[in-house]
């Protein structure tokens, strides 16, 4: 048979394209899509379990500075930190990280509201 492909070719000729005009029409991610990790830093207790369990060691937690850092290019969005977090302050967003040209760490720090004690002089 020679023209076995003709039906498919004709139907795709008269149907709308299967691809998107990317920057103009953007793909809507699914609810479940593993995009990127977000943290509610106010709820974090800096236990460091997420960084211990991370398969690629993308997360660094510094308890002393109350700092939580993630290397976005190292993170493989496996969702495991979200699962193990005891405070459930980590969430998986369904939007991907924006393209990057250099490795950088996204760092989150607890913003302390200075009170009228000796601490306020330090800050």
């Amino acid at each position, binding site marked *: 048979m*020679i023209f076995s492909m003709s039906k498919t070719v004709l139907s795709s000729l008269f149907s709308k394209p299967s691809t998107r005009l990317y920057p103009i029409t953007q793909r809507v991610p*699914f609810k*479940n*899509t593993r995009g990127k990790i977000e943290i509610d830093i106010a709820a974090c207790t800096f236990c460091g379990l997420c960084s211990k369990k991370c398969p690629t060691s993308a997360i660094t937690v510094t308890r002393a500075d109350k700092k939580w850092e993630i290397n976005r290019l190292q993170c*493989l969005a496996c*969702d*495991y930190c979200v699962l193990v977090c005891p405070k459930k302050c980590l969430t998986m967003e369904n939007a991907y990280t924006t393209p990057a040209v250099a490795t950088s760490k996204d760092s989150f720090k607890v913003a302390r509201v200075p009170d009228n004690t000796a601490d306020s002089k330090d800050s």
Partner: protein
Amino acid sequence: MSKRTIIPFGPQHPVLPEPIHLDLVVEDEKVIEAIPSIGFIHRGLEKLVEKKDFIDYVYVAERICGICSAIHGQTYCQAVEEVMNIAVPERALYLRTIWGELSRVHSHLLWLGLMADGFGFEALFMHCWRLRETVLDMIEETTGGRVIFGSCKVGGVRKDIDKPTLERIVAKLNGMEKEIKEVTDVFIVDRSVKHRTVGVGVLSKQDAYELGAVGPTMRASGINQDMRKLGYAAYKQLKFEPIVETAGDSYSRCVVRIKEIFQSIDLIRQAAVQLPEGPIDVKVTGTPSGEFFARTEQPRGEVIYYLKANGTRFLQRLRVRTPTFANIPALVKLLQGCELADVPILALTIDPCISCTER
């Protein structure tokens, strides 16, 4: 006797995005011998098992391969569960089966596309991948990842598929069957395609058996063996027969994979009907001690996970024998005596996945 020349094939070759190197000893246009060498992307994932907690290693096991990731994770989990005597809930077993079969459908559609690209049929390649994209969407909707599922864990699965979603997926697959048939029929009946595949690279039944070929490569040579028949996951409750062809040429290998797409869709349909209600995971306590061989059927063939645990949280040894590794001797045999122009097609027909092979 004409002069012998050695032509290098790969590790960078347009037809194969994965790094395998073949030294082709040719006499005129005939390949006399092919000497394979691998080792370009060795990552040492087997050694990593000594440093990762056995529960966490699932995420690494899934990333051994970018295409059959679901089944890699599943096989690892099965091996650990067997060592620890964990009874996995029925629902989890069914969900693993559904995801495993979805991954088979997408892997075979990917392969058909690559094959079409291999013999220079660009339009067919695009159509195969267009259909594959629909399957990838189903996978993403249910697990969150397009090719890395991340849904399996020791003791069950991490995500559930609710009834309306599953029904929608099955309805979509039912609708897709016709479309897939239209596209795959080109591989089966088209004259110019058949010119490239029929009678090319014949692997006899005896050779397939002696060289230890696995998966569709072996089934195309007439050996009736499918690891799913061992009855792991939910396969013991599902009705299916391994697809076997007898000619052993590139065409048969193609036909086996095409028929397996429809078989997988049928298995998903069956599993969706039988899917029991209940929990999707059990709590895992304690540490594994002992050793086990887990064997499952990947899109490319049989994969073996051997693991040895010594009662700590870190496994002592993990060995992964991937299907491509077992199929390389068969490939070397296929290449002996073929035309130089057929080498890319023949290398493709075993569906090589070198990332798997080197781990």
